[in-house]
């Protein structure tokens, strides 16, 4: 399997979907330049530049999906969903429920998310918990090129609506676009393994709602997604040096959530540490605790999350986002407070 970057993987999956299915169209601000490969290959009728009107755009994508197309609609950053949330919250997410299953919206909303490059709190949010909290919306957050391609394919082919979030730190394309390519001296804490990886040819769809165990380990479970997975893998190596075997579970999709994988791993390790770049009260980290408790898993639990608005200054930003140091500290505390194998 050839090795490609995260962004190339997404591009390839999109091209494949557009080749296979003429109903797939791409809508969004500046997409004719941002997705210029697809624009040149599939032409102006399938790649449409939108005005800066996210509400109208998402509603247009929804209507088009309801009437037979399969739109992939782009919002620059997930942060901007605030101007158009209604289209997801009250329309796309409710269509199937309101029609008793008679009508579906095969729609993918693609947006960049996440922080770690100094754009401050209005452009670096995760918000996957907020979105996944709405019944009827699926939310996926890939951490590897293969998952990025595979989840995008599954999302486009599925019944929708799906929000597909690309973490900017994983996407060289985004980092370049945001100024990384045009200057020296700027350092982004990019996980090496995330940026490149093997992707099948053609890429293989990855079903929504199935977590991936990235690393085995019986002492502690690190549960994460997106860039967090790479931070966890790094932490797990450091822990191994200390003689602690940490498993790393990559949730991959926030909704549907792979409850079974969480419960099993929680049971097996007795200690669960959630590493979630979304806000502490954003929903996902709490949900993992609830899922464990509901299933009677009395494992020890802790979380490393974004506790406040992400500040601009790089040092402050780093301290607020879940970094390896914070994960290590939380893991140590968990091991001390819950010394027995089972809670």
């Amino acid at each position, binding site marked *: 399997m050839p090795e490609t970057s995260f962004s190339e993987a997404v591009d390839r999956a999109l091209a494949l979907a557009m080749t296979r299915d003429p109903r797939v169209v791409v809508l969004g601000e500046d997409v004719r330049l941002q997705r210029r490969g697809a624009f040149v290959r599939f032409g102006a009728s399938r790649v449409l530049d939108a005005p800066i009107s996210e509400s109208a755009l998402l509603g247009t994508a929804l209507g088009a999906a309801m009437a037979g197309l399969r739109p992939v609609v782009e919002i620059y950053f997930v942060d901007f969903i605030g101007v158009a949330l209604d289209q997801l919250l009250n329309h796309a997410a409710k269509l199937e429920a309101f029609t008793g299953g008679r*009508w579906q919206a095969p729609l993918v909303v693609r947006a960049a998310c996440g922080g770690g490059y100094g754009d401050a709190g209005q452009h670096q949010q995760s918000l996957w918990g907020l979105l996944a909290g709405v019944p009827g919306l699926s939310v996926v957050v890939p951490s590897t090129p293969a998952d990025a391609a595979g989840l995008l394919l599954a999302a486009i082919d599925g019944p929708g609506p799906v929000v597909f979030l690309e973490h900017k730190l994983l996407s060289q394309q985004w980092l370049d676009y945001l100024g990384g390519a045009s200057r020296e001296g700027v350092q982004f804490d990019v996980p090496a393994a995330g940026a490149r990886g093997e992707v099948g040819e053609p890429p293989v769809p990855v079903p929504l709602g199935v977590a991936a165990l990235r690393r085995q380990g019986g002492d502690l479970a690190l549960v994460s997604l997106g860039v967090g997975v790479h931070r966890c893998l790094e932490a797990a190596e450091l822990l191994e040096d200390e003689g602690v075997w940490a498993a790393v579970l990559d949730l991959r999709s926030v909704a549907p959530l792979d409850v079974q994988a969480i419960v099993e791993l929680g049971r097996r390790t007795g200690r669960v540490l959630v590493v979630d770049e979304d806000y502490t009260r954003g929903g996902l980290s709490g949900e993992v605790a609830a899922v464990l408790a509901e299933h009677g898993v009395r494992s020890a639990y802790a979380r490393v999350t974004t506790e406040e608005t992400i500040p601009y200054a790089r040092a402050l930003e780093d301290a607020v986002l879940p970094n390896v140091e914070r994960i290590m500290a939380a893991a140590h505390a968990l091991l001390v407070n819950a010394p027995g194998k089972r809670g």
Partner: protein
Amino acid sequence: MSSTGTEQLQALYLQMCRIRWTEQALALLWRRGLASGEMHLGIGEEAVVAGVVGNLDDRDAMALDYRSTPALVARGVDLTSILLEVVGSPSGLCGGRGGHMHLMSREHLVAASGVVGAPGPLACGFGLAARTKGKGGVAVAFFGDGAVNEGMLMEALNLAAAWRLPVVFVCKDNRWAVTTRSSELTGGGLRRRLGAFGMPLDRVDGRDVESVAAAAARAVARGRAGRGPTVLLASCPRPEGHFLGDPLVRLTSAVGELAAEVRPLVAELVVRPGAPLAQRLSAVKGIGGKAAAVAVHAPARTSDPLRRAARRLPEATSRELAVVARREVETALGRVLGEAVSRA
């Protein structure tokens, strides 16, 4: 009037009667407590809706607001399934899960929403799909005068114009948004606003079904021919107030008897501290003025679109058509009441 003209008018009048009776059936179901929640009727909008929808066929789609039943009826959606939905029956159009603000039919490509402004974006999407299919289909958005200030609607007007989508935007201008006079809060006025997005605007008397039908025919033809979107600005009355149980309508009747709703306002005139008396009196006058306007509006039978259309038909014909429509609706209503009672 030519015979085809008469035939068309007959068909339109029949549609309008169907709509009117359906709305009255809805009112009945609501008053009896069989339809829950809010209930917004489309009485007064019959000519606008019948005139526009009469131009549509199977290729076309509609995005509707919470006064959606008229358009559904005119589009041929089964009456019984609409009424069943409104009483929450599992056999309703949406299995009882959508209810009267979210009536949808995939088969007919129509969807309603209770969020003000939502029909704009949705119609753009329907229009984009129609254009992609390339069969000349168009999409229609129905919305009110107040909705024109909702950002997503203005965005949709622009997007349709920018992408030259086959969309007909129909603004049903009843001059009110709940208890607010739209003219007071629509900067520049409706006509100028709607005309500012780069598409032709056609202003019609929405009580005159034939004018509406003619304007809509032009707009639909433009869309089918790939010449982009059109706005129809159609004035129409709102005889029942905003929704059943409208607070302004209630206030209006309360004034006469100085009832519970009015007395507290009188008390607010004197309690200290507060604004100077002149300001307070002007506030009371403002409220009173609105209530009076609604009261004056309500019994304006002369502007009833149905009567207008009927006057242009031979009396026997109009009466006959009215009876046909009434029977149809009553049959459906009878079934629905039967079902509702047997479920209860």
